[in-house]
């Protein structure tokens, strides 16, 4: 979605992707993540974008980009065509949550998903103060947000269990982009602003 310099979730994703892999980045923006993965990990990458300005920006960055609406699924992509399918800070904007997760793991061996955690304590405090949260990871006002789904880390993990998806990696970051240090899931849910997961189908 938005392009921030030095996005901490990009560091994690780059560390999970093996050199030479095929990567599909859904909602790739201007292609910054793919550009980084190409430069650092020598991947072959494709992005998917709906927005004209991002299509243009990705092309200017020399990234393969496909103009498509994620809500319509990934029909243009063959089964298991990619090693990693990335959905970075975009899941909360997609209405068909289960549909897109299923599609990601149809076309890819593993899915990487990052999203803002609604249960982050500053968000909760904003709500207790009577206002919708606005933060580093939820940077919109309620009336202009592209976000369609508001959920927490624990909500997401419950959905993964329900869908039979295995969580292979999880990293939770605070608003400064630092890893959250806690042992209990409830505490991590409370302290984390952005959650990053690597998922596979349970086999």
């Amino acid at each position, binding site marked *: 979605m938005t392009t921030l310099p030095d996005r901490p979730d990009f560091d994690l994703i780059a560390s999970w992707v093996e050199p030479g892999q095929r990567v599909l980045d859904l909602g790739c923006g201007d292609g910054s993540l793919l550009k980084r993965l190409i430069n650092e990990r020598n991947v072959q990458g494709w992005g998917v974008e709906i927005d004209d300005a991002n299509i243009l920006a990705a092309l200017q960055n020399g990234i393969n980009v*496909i*103009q*498509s609406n994620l809500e319509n699924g990934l029909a*243009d992509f063959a089964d298991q065509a990619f090693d990693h399918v990335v959905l970075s800070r975009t899941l909360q904007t997609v209405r068909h949550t289960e549909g897109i997760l299923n599609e990601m793991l149809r076309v890819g061996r593993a899915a990487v998903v990052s999203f803002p955690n609604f249960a982050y304590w500053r968000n909760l405090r904003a709500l207790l103060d009577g206002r919708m949260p606005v933060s580093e990871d939820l940077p919109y006002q309620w009336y202009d947000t592209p976000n369609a789904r508001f959920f927490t880390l624990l909500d997401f993990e419950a959905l993964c269990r329900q869908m039979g998806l295995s969580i292979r990696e999880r990293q939770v970051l605070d608003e400064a982009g630092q890893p959250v240090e806690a042992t209990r899931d409830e505490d991590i849910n409370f302290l984390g602003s952005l959650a990053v997961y690597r998922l596979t189908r349970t086999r």
Partner: protein
Amino acid sequence: MAGQSVGVVAAQRLHFSEPLHLRSGGVLPSYDLMVETYGTLNAAKSNAILICHALSGHHHVAGHYTDQPGNIGWWDNIIGPGRPLDTDKFFVVGLNNLGGCHGSTGPSSINPASGKPWGADFPMLAVSDWVTAQARLADCFGIDQWAAVMGGSLGGMQALRWSITFPERVRHAIVIASAPKLSAQNIAFNDVARQAILTDPDFHGGHYYDYGTRPLRGLRLARMLGHITYLSDDQMGEKFGRELRNNAFSFDFDVEFEVESYLRYQGDKFAGYFDANTYLLMTKALDYFDPARLDDGDLVKALGRTDPRTGFLVASFTTDWRFSPARSREIVAALLANGRNVSYAEIDLNFGHDSFLMEDAHYHGVVAAYLRNITL
């Protein structure tokens, strides 16, 4: 308009004396191609872009002639210094395809065997024949590999065919407002257009040149029909609506609605300069185009013949119902299934199939961005 025109240009005629064996089984013993070039071929000959034309196009792609300042090339808005096909960087080649009526060997040329115009005896052509002739043209210039082969509509089909037939000779293929093959509806429109020509009493079995006449009525109807398929419903509605020329019904068959006036004008203009036999050949080449045919209709397999290093830009237009975005997506999906480097833009422009010829900041921005990343 961003950038500049290439300015004054001149066409050249190239003669090819080696026989060309055609997909239909026919043979052209020798032939001429009309060609224009813009920009300068670099020493490594690595900066050449081939422009393939659509149904009614030709070699005069950009610029104007000294003695005809108003005769501007058909894709002038995209070619020139500072334009998306930047002639400060690229050497751009346009040609009139075989079978054409703008100087390249075609049905109105003299058949050396009879000393008369070929007419209906001109052999049937396929897109692959054009590509073979274009490859010989590349040889003439010493171009082993095009930096890009680019075209809209039927021109896009040639770019796609290039990437399959001569994979190592195409670094990038730019396929705009095109399709991997025609639908039954596309073929149906083409056949009605052909029937209009074939049933014109002035057609004389295609040998109308010998009778000092031309099937103008049929050609005019063919163009009117074709023109409807080039425009979008919305655009026609906005441009003409139900406007009447004289503000009242005249209750006769003269021109009443503005849209009738427009179509008749377009038909008359086209019939005035285009050759009916060429129109027949071009529409048949469109109908025959199906690069997956020899792979049992498997487009993924057919595009697997492209070079893994070849890059593709595919673009479509939201209001194009002749070759809709879904048709371009078939190409994109088959390229993706082969792991090819492909980008796809679905451009929101209101001009139907004709959008590919229009100047639009986003559309041209997409083409410019893609071309700017081509390394020479």
